[in-house]
């Protein structure tokens, strides 16, 4: 019991001790950081989505849609337009009301489709391992925006916010999970909250962002063998020069 009590009393440790919380020792002697190139560069992203609107008591919406996102940097993107059509199926509640209590509810308006535009902030980039074998790259983002919802009785404005997770499959393809909470004012009766969960496949095109200029990076093409030529002029096998930076794989080919 003592063993149990001790950790519980250390609730103070709930405060995240995140990785960069460098202790005094580290401050003294530096810190190690793995610096890796980001393998994927999003520019023009076209997304196809399937989703669900699960919260309404009377119906469940199954959505199909898509979006276009313009990536301005690795941090900020503009989901210029998104459209999701919702096909709704009853939850069986109406039938239950009728069967058990002989009550027929007045029909509430249902979501038919959603149109929006969002700012996407992607502050988190990282990687995941699947059973500690393969590595998947991914990012977590937050979408904030607004637009309109077409209900069965007309249009309503909407504001929405929600997190998302992207897993990269390759430079072109990535998969996304978005959970967006949409607030649509139902004047004068109140505020309708619509939860929209989507799974998407995204296709990325382009290599230079609107905010970037095309720069040809200077590549050092020396291989080190030049120094051998200089130090030992006769050492270069006649007529054969090593191709700069050639790897074994290339040589195998």
């Amino acid at each position, binding site marked *: 019991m003592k063993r149990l009590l001790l950790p519980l009393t250390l609730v103070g*440790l709930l405060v995240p001790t995140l*990785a960069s919380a460098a202790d005094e020792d580290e401050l003294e002697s530096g810190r190690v950081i793995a610096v890796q190139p980001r393998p994927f560069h999003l520019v023009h992203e076209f997304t196809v989505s399937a989703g669900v609107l*699960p919260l309404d*008591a009377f119906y469940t919406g199954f959505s199909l849609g898509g979006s276009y996102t313009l990536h301005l940097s690795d941090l900020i993107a503009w989901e210029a337009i998104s459209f999701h059509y919702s096909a709704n199926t009853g939850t069986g*509640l109406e039938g239950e009301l009728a069967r058990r*209590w002989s009550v027929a509810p007045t029909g509430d308006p249902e979501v038919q489709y959603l149109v929006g535009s969002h700012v996407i902030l992607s502050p988190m*980039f*990282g990687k995941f391992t699947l059973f500690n074998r393969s*590595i998947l790259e991914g990012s977590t983002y937050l979408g904030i925006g607004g637009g309109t919802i077409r209900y069965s009785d007309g249009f309503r404005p909407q504001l929405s916010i929600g997190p998302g997770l992207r897993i990269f499959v390759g430079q072109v393809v990535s998969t996304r999970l978005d959970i967006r909470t949409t607030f649509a004012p139902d004047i004068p009766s109140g505020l309708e909250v619509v939860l929209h969960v989507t799974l998407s496949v995204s296709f990325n095109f382009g290599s230079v962002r609107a905010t970037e200029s095309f720069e040809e990076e200077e590549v050092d093409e020396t291989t080190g063998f030049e120094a051998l030529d200089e130090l030992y002029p006769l050492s270069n096998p006649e007529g054969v020069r090593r191709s700069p930076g050639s790897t074994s794989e290339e040589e195998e080919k």
Partner: protein
Amino acid sequence: MTERQAKRAVFVALLFALFNEGRAWAEEDAQDTRIAIQRRRFNMAHELRLSLGSMPVDAFQKGWTGSLSYTQHFNNYFAWEVVQVTAAALVSTNLRDNLIDTFAVPEEDFAAPRFMATTGLELTPIYGKQAFLNDDVIYQALIVGAYGGVIFGDRGGIGDTLGDFRPSIGGGIGYRLYTSDLVSFRADIRDFLSFRRAIQTNETLRLENVLFITLSVSFNLWRDDA
């Protein structure tokens, strides 16, 4: 040994083998080039979890829940959630209020889930980290699980409630955010199929869907590497 006993023995042996295999798996050979991480920063052992949550899909009563659970982690991948007990505070929806006020429906007709006791097996296939603005590194894991147990429907008195027990099975997905060796946070979404018996005359035997969303704080106790 009866056939049933033999089957049970085989099942137990298989289960044991599975966990032992997992145990060996956890002590991965650092020189195995197929592995991605040689030494994981966070390793779970005995997890005690306190959760607050919601059962949002019942049309008549939304449940706000509190849960306590204990999970034994066999290795970095397999765990057994030995028990999770949950109690719900039920909040009436407008629809239920209308039915009671306008149509004089008795309050005990609705019987949303009030208590829950489950056990389950969990798998953590995905573990990883993300850098927040290239600075703080946040460690995370994704959990999937299969659960089973009983749900007790609210029938007013405690005796009646315990009498309305509903065998339930479900699956779930969870997300863990590690903050220290001792503490991590979890978000879980579980969906149960609950076999609801006809207790009252206007009820029929039916399968009820119970969506259960929780946010938890987990304490990782008695680690081997502590």
